[in-house]
């Protein structure tokens, strides 16, 4: 098995190659405005670093967000197209799950019983989800949501928090843990563990959580005074 992991749901443009046992190589660049420029060269670079070629990749796993739409779509369309071109499957993993998994990998004991992941949703909001810390990993409770940090319940906000939202809205959140942005290595590792456990992975479909901003056609403007 050779997984190509990709995520563009946070400020990181991140790519990893995972062989089922561990991460062979990972490349990440922090630039929230240039996902489209760094991602493709990042795939080439990561495969080269891992000493592997495109035809050895057996599946693609991509972060499905939630995250700012334009960046998120770049990862998804890249993953879907790569998989189609190679004739291999493509799977989606919630990007917040990948961050919770990384926090758990790094220091499961230090997390206590629960944690929150909160990332930048722009417009003074965060994408967030709550996780239970178990021996098997960090398990999400419910669907990810989007909200103002101040609108999240006190007892949830007070939990250890991973993700950039914890830095942007430090006054609302509790103790910072884990990563600020997604690592494709953690994403691929989570996917590999789920596959090994016989779980089905989701589709590579975006979690937007917001409708497009658009106003239906207003009444015609008058031009005569």
């Amino acid at each position: 098995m050779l997984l190509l992991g990709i995520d563009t749901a946070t400020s990181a443009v991140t790519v990893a190659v995972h062989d089922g046992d561990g991460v062979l190589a990972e490349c990440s660049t922090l630039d929230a405005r240039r996902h489209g420029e760094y991602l493709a060269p990042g795939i080439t670079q990561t495969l080269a670093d891992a000493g592997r070629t495109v035809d050895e990749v057996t599946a693609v796993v991509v972060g499905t967000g939630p995250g700012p739409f334009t960046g998120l779509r770049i990862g998804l369309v890249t993953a879907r197209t790569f998989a189609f071109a190679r004739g291999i499957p493509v799977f989606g993993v919630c990007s917040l799950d990948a961050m919770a998994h990384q926090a758990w990998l790094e220091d499961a004991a230090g997390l206590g019983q629960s944690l929150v992941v909160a990332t930048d949703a722009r417009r003074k909001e965060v994408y967030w989800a709550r996780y239970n810390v178990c021996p098997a990993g960090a398990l999400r409770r419910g669907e990810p949501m989007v909200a103002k940090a101040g609108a999240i319940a006190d007892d949830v906000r007070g939990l250890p928090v991973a993700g950039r939202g914890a830095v942007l809205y430090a006054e609302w959140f509790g103790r910072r843990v884990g990563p600020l942005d997604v690592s494709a290595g953690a994403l691929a590792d989570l996917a590999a563990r789920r596959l090994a456990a016989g779980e089905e992975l989701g589709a590579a479909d975006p979690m937007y959580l917001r409708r497009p901003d658009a106003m239906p056609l207003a009444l015609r403007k008058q031009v005569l005074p």
Partner: protein
Amino acid sequence: MTGGPLVLGIESSCDETGVGIVRGHTLLADAIASSVEEHARFGGVVPEVASRAHLEAMVPMIDRACRDAGVRLDDLDAIAVTAGPGLAGALLVGVAAAKSLSVALGKPLYGVNHLAAHVAVDIVEHGPLAEPTMAMLVSGGHSSLLLVPDITQDVRSLGSTIDDAAGEAFDKVARVLGLPFPGGPHVDRVAVDGNSGHVFFPRGLTSGRDMERHRFDFSFSGLKTSVARWVEARERAGEPVPVADVAASFQEAVVDVLTRKAVLACREHGVDDLLIGGGVAANTRLRAMARERCDAAGIRLRVPRPGLCTDNGAMVAALGAAMVSRGCAPSALDLPADSSMPVTLVQV
């Protein structure tokens, strides 16, 4: 014609997700998905709605184009993609898909200009372009007169709209007349039964001083306002609005200016070949008047069939194939999408 490079082109600058496949001068596939119906109730293209639709349509269109052309992705010689101009978020979906194909298949990538592609598409319809060619591009997003010595690397701008694009004027006037979005086809349809001499609407930038300062530029904003005033005045007076006559009169004003300036540009630059492209080139009155005036001036006119005038992937593939044939170097894998890419930049 079976020779020439096999190129797949991707277009996603506005609301059409287009994937075309061209071999040399021959069109093999032109798969297209449009989100236009999702935008209709907003009266214009909503960028986020368009971008979401591009993501969902991209792989299905690549798949359909390969099936229609009867080729495998591995057979391709190159990938071409619209790098700009257009809606930033929409462009990025196509550019990312093209890069991913390039990486996954190990094929060279060409990031090309959408406007140049509108010109190049006629290669698959009427063969190689005359050099130089005069090109007039008219659509919802652009209205330009271009002098084109070499479509793969030398495109010069003679003029463009200083306010609304021609297609935008059609959309806005359609709204005033209570016709659906997009306005172009509907105005064209109802104008058939109208009297184009019913109202004489202004011809923007055609008077003496404007012809010195804006010789090959266009302006359609004043025309649109003039139509709106005329219609409102009738409505306020409680009189019925002769929709067909107003549509025909408006269309006549647009087409008159476009063809007059295009023919003048050919004459003054000593160019014998005029090519009209872009969505508005599907307009039947524009095609007819351009034909008349070009015949009278001894200019050879080329207009692609209507299906190739609107945005599509074939035009991008056609330009990519011309570039590969000319030995142009591929683009870098980190090429950006450029929403305001200048028309004079053919490739990034």
